[in-house]
Structure formats: C-alpha cells, structure tokens
C-alpha cells in the first residue's frame, strides 16, 4: 500500500525544483522547461487526489488531461516566440530582453 502522501511529497519536490529552475536559469528555454516541471507536478497531484479521495469521479483525471493539452499549446506558442526573439536579437537570455522597456 502506497500512501497518498508519498506521491504528494514527490510532486512537491518536483514542483519546487521547477520553481528553483524558474528563478535560477537565465535561458528562456530553460525557464520554459522549469515551467513544465511545475505543471507536471500539479498534474500528478490532480491524478492522485482523484484516485485516492474521489475514486468515483473523473474531475482530476480530466483536469490533468486538459492541462497536458494546454501545456502543449503553451509550449508551442512560447517556443515560437522564443525563436522569433532569437531571430531578432540572436540571444535568448532574459537579461538581454529589455528592448520593449525603453
């Protein structure tokens, strides 16, 4: 028997690994990857809660499903933007992205 909390602990670690990456990395793609981690950990939580606490229902399941779909869309757009930026300034370091500020 695996306790629900085990899953939660794993996902929490993953979540904060993502957050740390989000702070730490300076590359846009790396930041995006960190976001994927965060999303994934949340997905796990949804699935786990659904399975353990509300076994008769499907909300968590579907939420995860939709989240995967949306994250795919988000990634696609983000990567398109990143490529476009790269084309314009030959760099994707966040510290260089300050053109719109001025």
């Amino acid at each position, binding site marked *: 028997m*695996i*306790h629900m*909390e085990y*899953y*939660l*602990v*794993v996902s*929490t*670690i*993953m*979540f*904060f*690994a*993502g*957050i*740390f*990456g989000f*702070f*730490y*990395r*300076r*590359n846009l*793609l*790396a930041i995006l*990857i960190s976001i*994927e*981690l965060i999303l*994934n950990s949340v*997905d*796990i939580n949804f*699935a786990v809660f659904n*399975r*353990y*606490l509300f*076994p008769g*229902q499907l909300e968590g*399941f*579907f939420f*995860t*499903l*939709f989240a*995967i*779909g*949306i994250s*795919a*869309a988000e*990634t*696609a*757009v983000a*990567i*398109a*933007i*990143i*490529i*476009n930026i*790269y*084309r314009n300034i030959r760099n*994707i*370091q966040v*510290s260089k992205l300050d053109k719109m500020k001025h």
Partner: protein
Amino acid sequence: MEIVVFYILAAVIVVFSVLTVTTQRILRSATYLLFVLFGTAGIYFQLNYSFLGAVQLTIYAGGIIVLYVFSILLTSPDGDKIATKLPKSKLFAGLVASLAGAVLCIFITLNHTFPVSRFVPGEIDMKTIGFALLGTEKYQYMLPFEAISVLLLACIIGGIMIARKRG
C-alpha cells in the same frame, strides 16, 4: 512490488527534476526533463490511469520534448554556457526560498489529515472517457473540450504567425 516500483519512479523523478534545473547544458536539461516525464507517466500507470499515462507519453515525451530539442538546436548550440552567471546571493536566495517552500509544503502535507483515503484500483474504460469528454451534462466536458480545441487552433495560428520569417 508496487512499493518498489514507486520508489524507483520517485527516485527517478526527484533526481532528474533536480538535475533538469541544475545542469548547465540546456540539451541535457531537456533530456532530464524527458526522464522526469517518463517517471510521471509511470506514476499515472501506477494509479491505473493508463489513458493519462499514454497521453503523457505521446504528447509530452513524444511531442513537446521534440519541440524543445529542435528549438534548442535552432537557437543556441552553446546553450547556457555563455549565460551570464547569477550573483551568488541570488542563487542562494533562490535556493533557500525553494527549499523553504518545499519543506513547508511537505510539512503541511504530512501534517494535514486528509479525509479517508484509499486506493481503489480499476481502469476507466475508453467508452466512459469518450462519453464524459463529449457529453453535455453534469460531470461531462464538452465545453472545456471545445474551448481547448479553439485554444489549440489559436495557438497553431499564433505560432505560425509569430515564428514565420518576415518578408
């Protein structure tokens, strides 16, 4: 058996998550992410959500990671190497904040008394999923489904618009 599998999965996820965000090379980072995603898929299978696991594998591991790899190759072969290093203080602050967050979260999770939780095995068959997805009644998800399809369409168009070369 299950416990063993879970520990292996958990170890994979934790180790590779940390590696994903700490490695200096962006391509490795993507690769480690792939492993994390595999691990997540494994957890879905373990929870008896085979469909979800399959989706995870195909869309994430199959689709998104490929997208990442391509864009990494397209943008910066040198990856993070030339990235400006963060000041130590910021790194430390981020680390401390994240760790504190993690500790706090875990602490809460472990201390919280959830309602009676038990693992009820059993697959959800495709028919149920299909009906739920395309039904319009309570606990059926026609509307979000359509909304997401529109969103995807918009993203496709948007992606093309943004990424295409300007004449």
